[in-house]
């Protein structure tokens, strides 16, 4: 336990000393917030839940994929993990510390964005703050663990960048985070149902616009928890302390294994249509509240 606490403490200190961590966690979301808030929020108060959801999801994607994934590869490439290899610890405390650090660093930006949305653009504070906290926590932990599994299967910095972009780009544009799902073409809507980030977007929007609880988002939450556990467990197994230890190309398929919960969920949603109905309803509600 002592090693877990010590690693979390040092990871937090190192993160706060790293300008790029501070920029991407705090300044970057604020830039998005004010650019979109300035464009839409002033004229259309109903768009704020949409903008806040977008900022939160972009933050989670960046924190997880770049913050956890890229950093893990950097530490391996810089022979830092090699120093930890001679210590009497398993990879678990290192990975757990990465998950917890990402979560602790992310929480202030949630509070910041919600406060600014309320104070500057008069967005009501969501009623289900605990549910919001739950979705945020689950989102950050799951995306951190996805970052870690990508780091586990990447053999070099370049490879990790490609893998991370392969995850980041579709989720940036097709999850409903940046463009409302209701406005996307059919193929994009179908794809969205298989993307973990889409469920975060609709969960946040549901909490802001419909006062939904965590429980009402339980299907998505279950898939996030399953992906989190799978990614964490497989990351521990595939963990490499040294850049010289290369992983076989076939091992990259483990990433697909981690996404199985969302493949199952995507197939289910394609049949039931629940997810797209919810996304459409949320969009209409946003339009409606904007006209009020």
């Amino acid at each position, binding site marked *: 336990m002592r090693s877990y606490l010590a690693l979390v403490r040092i990871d937090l200190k190192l993160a706060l000393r790293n300008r790029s961590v501070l920029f991407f966690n705090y300044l970057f979301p604020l830039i998005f917030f004010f650019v979109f808030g300035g464009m839409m929020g002033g004229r259309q108060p109903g768009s704020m839940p949409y903008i806040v959801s977008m900022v939160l999801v972009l933050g989670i994607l960046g924190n997880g994929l770049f913050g956890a994934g890229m950093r893990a590869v950097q530490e391996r490439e810089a022979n830092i993990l090699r120093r930890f290899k001679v210590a009497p*610890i398993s990879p678990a405390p290192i990975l757990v510390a990465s998950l917890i650090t990402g979560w602790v660093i992310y929480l202030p930006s949630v509070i910041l964005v919600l406060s600014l949305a309320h104070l500057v653009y008069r967005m009501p504070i969501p009623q289900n703050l605990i549910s919001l906290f739950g979705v945020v926590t689950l989102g950050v932990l799951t995306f951190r663990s996805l970052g870690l599994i990508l780091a586990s299967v990447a053999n070099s910095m370049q490879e990790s960048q490609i893998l991370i972009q392969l995850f980041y780009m579709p989720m940036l544009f097709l999850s409903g985070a940046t463009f409302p799902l209701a406005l996307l073409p059919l193929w994009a809507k179908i794809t969205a149902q298989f993307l973990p980030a889409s469920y975060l977007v609709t969960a946040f929007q549901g909490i802001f616009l419909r006062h939904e609880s965590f429980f009402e988002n339980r299907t998505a939450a279950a898939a996030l928890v399953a992906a989190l556990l799978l990614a964490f467990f497989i990351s521990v197994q595939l963990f490499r302390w040294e850049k010289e230890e290369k992983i076989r190309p076939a091992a990259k398929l483990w990433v697909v294994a981690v996404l199985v919960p969302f493949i199952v969920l995507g197939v289910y949603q394609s049949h039931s249509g629940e997810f797209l109905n919810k996304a459409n309803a949320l969009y209409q509600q946003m339009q409606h509240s904007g006209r009020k």
Partner: protein
Amino acid sequence: MNDVAPIQVEGLIKNYGDFQAVGGIDFEVRAGEVFGLLGPNGAGKTTTVEILEGLRPRNGGRVSVLGFDPGKQSRKLKDRIGVCLQATNLPEKIKVTEALDLFASFHSRTLQPGTLLERLQLEGKRDSFYSQLSGGQKQRLALALALLNDPQVLFLDEPTAGLDPQARHGIHELVQDFRKEQRTILLTTHYIEEAEKLCDRVAIIDGGKIIAIGTPQEIQARTSGRSIIEIRCEQPLPGAEPPAWTDAEKVTIGEGRRAITVVSARPARTLVEMVKWIDQQGIDLSDVHLKRPSLEDVFIELTGRSLRE
């Protein structure tokens, strides 16, 4: 208990695919001794040490470190040994004291980090970031981390590689201090002078096999043990061929016939005869140099190659 060697290796084999990195080596390191694995890059030194540290699995042989099998009890073993690996780093923005506190949290028992900083002359750097340390200071910090759990067995893999002579001297003094504290030390190096200066016993390793083992003096004595005699004269030597001095081999005359170099298995006798002959020629000596065979010469004799090739 004390007569049980803390490190025992029998028939150790390690293969990487078709390549055999370590081909069945045997040695033991006795309590309180500094044992050196000397050999060129790629000889199998680091692989051997990393197997003993519990960092790599082995393909064959029996290995015991402090009574643990590194292949099966690596966590327990790592808690008891100190390791200073080649080419490791710490995060750039970690402070020296933070690094010690962090690694202390991984061990079941540790020394006071403050005492270690003092000991390794890092007290002035306690709040410095890792990136602000010099190469020598980084290496001293690595040694401090290796000493954190007050280990009885220390593994030092190329502890002075890449350091300037002054920093290297500092590390040598530390290793000598560790020996005085009765710690058992296994170090790898490709610096001859390091092995000669620090090690009680040395194993010369090449191509994954031990080709000589013993004290540096024993190893030097076991080979043909030829010394090199170099004599410089004030005036050129006469044109006539010098006589056949006793035990002299490979006589070469150079530098405008002012220098003679001779290889001899019994240098004292050869030298006396040489000096007598030069005196008889009415020539004054300007310099006499006797070079004993080094471990490098032994390595060349055994393998036909230099250590740094």
